[in-house]
């Protein structure tokens, strides 16, 4: 099991936003978390990424009980084992693409490995862009960089929050293709949280969430 969630209650303060009695995701079992706005998808992702601490229950990622880790350990765990892709493809504008990717490696506590960066960008067809700054890229190129950043540390789990909802149909398909392809290529399990019904058919495992309130 790459993800093993039991009796989870998560939320803010005393307010429970999402509660999940049990959820298991096997290695390689790319999964869609589908549900309307406010159903707790993002909260669930935050808990899995170790950004938020669950109010109750156990969250085990790749054999590590995330809720038992301290704040610093969760940061390290996230950097090392989890890749994150957001709707807003945020890249650091002060750094070149190469340095954005190196930053992802060094913040994860890994050695800077330029050959790994090269293979990641080669696979995404953006190897010519390494020395450009983010403002010099098109939206599509920026998306590829964001995906390269998510896979560069060979994470076990890639969490994507609404990666397609701002895209038109054509780009939506292309982005999803890249995500699935790159996740499989680096041996990671992809979990996409979205309200975007268009991509439902692309996933074998779909978990529907309903709002708690």
């Amino acid at each position, binding site marked *: 099991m790459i993800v093993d969630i039991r009796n989870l209650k998560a939320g803010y303060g005393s307010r429970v936003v999402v509660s999940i009695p049990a959820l298991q995701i096997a290695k390689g079992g790319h999964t869609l978390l589908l549900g309307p706005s406010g159903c707790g998808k*993002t909260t669930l992702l935050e808990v899995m990424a170790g950004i938020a601490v669950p109010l109750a229950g156990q969250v085990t990622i790749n054999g590590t009980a995330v809720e038992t880790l301290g704040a610093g350990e969760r940061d390290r765990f996230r950097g090392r084992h989890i890749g994150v892709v957001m709707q807003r493809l945020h890249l650091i504008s002060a750094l070149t693409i190469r340095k954005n990717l190196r930053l992802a490696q060094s913040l994860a506590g890994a050695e800077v490995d330029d050959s790994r960066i090269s293979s990641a960008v080669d696979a995404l067809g953006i190897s010519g862009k390494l020395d450009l700054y983010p403002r010099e890229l098109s939206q599509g190129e920026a998306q590829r960089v964001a995906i390269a950043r998510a896979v560069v540390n060979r994470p076990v789990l890639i969490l994507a929050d609404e990666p397609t909802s701002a895209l038109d149909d054509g780009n939506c398909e292309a982005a999803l293709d890249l995500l699935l392809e790159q996740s499989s290529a680096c041996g990671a399990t992809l979990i996409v949280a979205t309200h975007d019904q268009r991509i439902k058919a692309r996933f074998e495992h779909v978990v529907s969430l309903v709002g708690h309130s």
Partner: protein
Amino acid sequence: MKSLSTAIALAFAYLREKPLATLLNILLLGLGVGTIIALALTLSQLDDRMDRDAAGVDLVIGAKGSPLQLVLSSVFHVDIPTGNISVAEAAPVLASPMVRRAIPLALGDSYRSFRIVGTTSAYIEIYGAALRDGRIWNTSLEVVVGADVARITGLTVGKSFAGAHGLSEGGGDDADHADHADHADHADHRYTVVGVLKPTGSVIDRVILTSVESVREVHEDTKTQSPPGKHEHGAGDQVTAYLIQYATPLAAASLPRAVNASGALQAASPAAEIARLFNLAGLGIIALRGFALVMVLCAALGIFVGLMNALDERRADLALLRLLGASRATVFLTVIAQGAALGLAGVILGLAIGHAGIEWIGSALEKTHRLSLTGFTFAGEEIWLILGALLLSMLAGLVPAWRAYRSAVPELLNRA
């Protein structure tokens, strides 16, 4: 360690991204720090120099007038004398058991704005000076020149020159003698250099020494050519001043009072007059230092505002750093390192400005012979200034860094 180097690398990238704001902050801090350093260097060197010049002199006795002027003219040789005193009138005071040594000074002429001082060899002793070349004067019109005089005018043993009236080149600042606009060189009385002194770092480096009789002789003759009363220096049985060393510290309490109460004489203490001078100049120094401090504070404020603005712009960056595995501490360091880097660059620039500026002013002043300043030295308070400026820039980064530390990661994730 790894996260520290990552934070520093990122801080530099952020500073490079806004070169104008970065340079402006560094420049402002550099100018403020530089001004304070220049002031500190000037004051400490001036203070040292004046202490050294006055070290062997407990009291100056001269003609009535401004005590500050008496000290400036007789000890530092930067002002015109207050007048002359009669040797006979001074004799009872000098005979007091409280006086260990009294050195006569006869002033009035100069050569290329270096003052010619008629005195005794005891004058050389109180400054601990030694001869580099030649010997002490024996007869009239023989002179021994200080090290700076020799270096700047090129006078060496065997050369001769004629003195000019007044103190500065052309006698311009010698108000008493302004009517001698032609200030005829005493061309018919040429001095001959018989000795050159080793450098001491005190005022003796910048004077030309001869016997009291030499100065009198030169002016006896001039006196016959000039209307009576125009020449008031060192003529006849007169001298300009006496430098006194006390036999006992107790003399400080009674001797000056006794002298000042008697007739035409005035006693002035160099230490007291230096203190008074610094008091007079104090307001200007305080104002200048205050102005420089305001500059430093503005620089710190600039760093603070810059980092706060950048924080708003880079909110998403900070959240991203956390998503990529950065700890809160790393994010904090990224911001505080920017303040520290600006502070360090500003301090280095300030050190360069302050020291280069003083060295430049010093080399310009060299030509006026009045004060030697160098930038190749450190004033004691500089280390505190450097630490203070660094601390201030880090403090300026503290609030933005704390806000970065506290900012929540999920802001970047979509809540919609």
